[in-house]
C-alpha cells in the first residue's frame, strides 16, 4: 500500500519533470528570433548562402540533422537543376555533400556522401546521366557559416551542385 503510494508520487514527479523539460525546449526555440522564418523544423529555408547556377536555379539543398531525405523545397530545386542540365548537355557537375559540426568526423564524411547521393539520385530520375555527375563529400570540413548555433548548422547541412567544367 505504502510502496505503491511512493511509486505513484515518484511517477507524478517524473511526469512533472517531463512536462517542464518539454516547456523549456519549446521556449528556447521560440526566443531565438533570428531563426524564425529561416528554418522549417531544423532544415534551412533561407537564401543567405544560396548561389545560382542560372536564373531561378539555386545551387544547393538543405537537410535535417543526421538526415539525407530531400524536402519538398529541395526536390523543387533539384528539378530546376535537372532541367537546366538537360538544356546544357556539355556541363558536368560535382555534388558536394556537407555535414554540420555536431558529429564525429568520419561519420560526417559518410553522411556528406549520402546527402550528395540523394541529390544525385534525384537528378538522375529527372534525366541527368550519372556520368555527368561526380559526388564529393567534405563531411564537416567546409562549413559556410562558422557559427556554433542551430541556424549556422542548418546552413552547413547541404549538398551543393558545382559546375565541373
Amino acid at each position, binding site marked *: 500500500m505504502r510502496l505503491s503510494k511512493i511509486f505513484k508520487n515518484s511517477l507524478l514527479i517524473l511526469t512533472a519533470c517531463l512536462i517542464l523539460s518539454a516547456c523549456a525546449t519549446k521556449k528556447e526555440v521560440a526566443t531565438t528570433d533570428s531563426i524564425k522564418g529561416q528554418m522549417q523544423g531544423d532544415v534551412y529555408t533561407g537564401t543567405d548562402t544560396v548561389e545560382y547556377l542560372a536564373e531561378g536555379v539555386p545551387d544547393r539543398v538543405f537537410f535535417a540533422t543526421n538526415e539525407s531525405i530531400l524536402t519538398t523545397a529541395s526536390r523543387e530545386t533539384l528539378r530546376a537543376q535537372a532541367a537546366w542540365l538537360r538544356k546544357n548537355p556539355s556541363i558536368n557537375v560535382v555534388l558536394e555533400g556537407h555535414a554540420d559540426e555536431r558529429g564525429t568526423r568520419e561519420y560526417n564524411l*559518410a553522411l556528406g556522401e*549520402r546527402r550528395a547521393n540523394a541529390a544525385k539520385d534525384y537528378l538522375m530520375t529527372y534525366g541527368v546521366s550519372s556520368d555527368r555527375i561526380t559526388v564529393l563529400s567534405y563531411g564537416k570540413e567546409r*562549413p559556410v557559416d562558422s557559427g556554433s548555433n542551430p541556424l549556422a548548422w542548418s546552413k552547413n547541412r547541404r549538398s551543393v551542385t558545382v559546375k565541373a567544367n
Partner: protein
Amino acid sequence: MIKKIISIFLILIPINAFALIEVDITRGNLNPLPLAVSPLSIDETSKKEFEKILKKQNIGSEISLIVENNLKTSGLFNPLDKKAFLQAPDIANLKPRFEDWNLIKAQALITGKVNYIDSKLRVEFRLWDVLAAKEMMALAFTTVPTNWRRVGHIISDKVYERLTGEKGYFDTRIIYVSEEGPKTQRIKKLAIMDQDGENNTFLTLGNELVLTPRFNPASQMVTYLSYFKNMPRVYLLDIETGTQEVVGDFPGMTFAPRFSPDGKKIIMSFAKDGKSDIYTMDLENRIVEKITNHPSIDTSPSYSPDGKYITFNSDRSGYQQIYVMKNDGSDVKRISFGNGLYGTPVWSPRGDLIAFTKLHKGKFYIGVMRTDGSGERLLTENYYQEAPSWSPNGRVLIFYRETKTNSKGEGFSAKLWSIDLTGYNERQIKTPTDASDPSWSSLLSN
C-alpha cells in the same frame, strides 16, 4: 624526419631487486608518489663538448628535466622541488645519503651521470628505493648526442615500468593534424611530435585537406585521408622516407583508415551510392576484402589487439551506435545501448576496453566500455571533443577538443588533450598551431 636509433643499448647491471615501492595505478593522481629526480651529473669537459654540439648549457640537467616532466604529467608521480635537495648530484649517484632524501619525503630517487665519450653521449642512471635504502635499477645508454631527448624518455619509461609494473609510454610520438585559418577554410597539415610536444615537424604543406592520420602499431608508417586532386582517398605514408601511395583502387571516397595490429593490413571505409562499408586491404598481396555489406553507414573500424575482432560504428539501427564483429564480418553485435549517439570506437591495446565518443543532449563525451558494452564510464564532457587514441600501454587517451564560437562565429579553436583512464589528470598538450585527430605511436624502443 629520420628516426635515429639508439646505437648501443647496453645494460650495465641487471635488474635484481624486488619491487619495494608500490604505486597505486588504479587511482590516477589522487596520491602521486613523491620522488626526487637529481640532475644527472656531468664533468666539465663533457659539459663543454655537449654545449658545442647541442647548444645546451648543461645537458645533464636537461635530460633530468625531461624525466621529471614525463613522470609528473603521468599523474602517478610527484617530483619534488630540486631546491630542497641536500646532496650534490655527483655524490648522490655514487651513494645516496638516504636519510637526506628521506627527510624531504622522497620515496624514490633517480640519479645518474652524463659523459662525452668518442663523440657519443653516454648516460648512466640509477633508481633508488629511499625507504629500503636500496638500488632498484641501474642502466647505461650510449648514443649519438642528438638523441638526448630520447634518452630522457627511455629513462622515464624504465622508471615508470619499474615502479608501476606496466610498460611506459614516453618514448613515443604523436601524429596529428595541424590546423590554421578561418573555420570555413581551414588549412590542415600532417604534423608529428614527441609525446611531450617537442620536436614538432610538419609532414605536408597544407595544399590539400588531410585528415585522420594513424600510426602503424608495428612500424613508423602512417595511414591517413588526403583530398589530393579533390579525390578523398586513403594514403600510406612512410614518415622516414616521405614516400606515399594511394591505398587500393576504389571508384570513390575511401576514409577512416587504421592498421591491423600486425601492421599488415589497412582497414577502412569505402563510400559508394550513399552507403559506406568496411573493407580491408592486405599491404603485401594487395588483396581487398569487403567486410561489411549493409545499406547503412559503417565506419571508424578498429581491430582488437589479437586481430580477431573489429569494432566499428554504424547507423543500421537508425542512429550511430557501436558494434563488434569477427574479423571476417560475421557475428555482428551492437554493444552501445546507452542514451545518445556513439562513435569512433577504438580498441584498447590491453584488449579489455573500447574507448569511444558519445553525443548526448548537445554534449560530447569521451568514454570507455568493456568490449561487450557493459561498464560504460564517461571520462570527460565538453561542447565538442572526439577521436580518442590510446597510449601504447592502454593507460592514457589522447583526443581533440573544439571550442564553441560566439554569435559572430569567432573564438574557434581546436586543441589536443589527454586524460588518464581513471578520468583524472586531464591535460592540454601544447602544439604550435591548432590541432586535431591525434594518433599515438607504439614505443619506439622496447
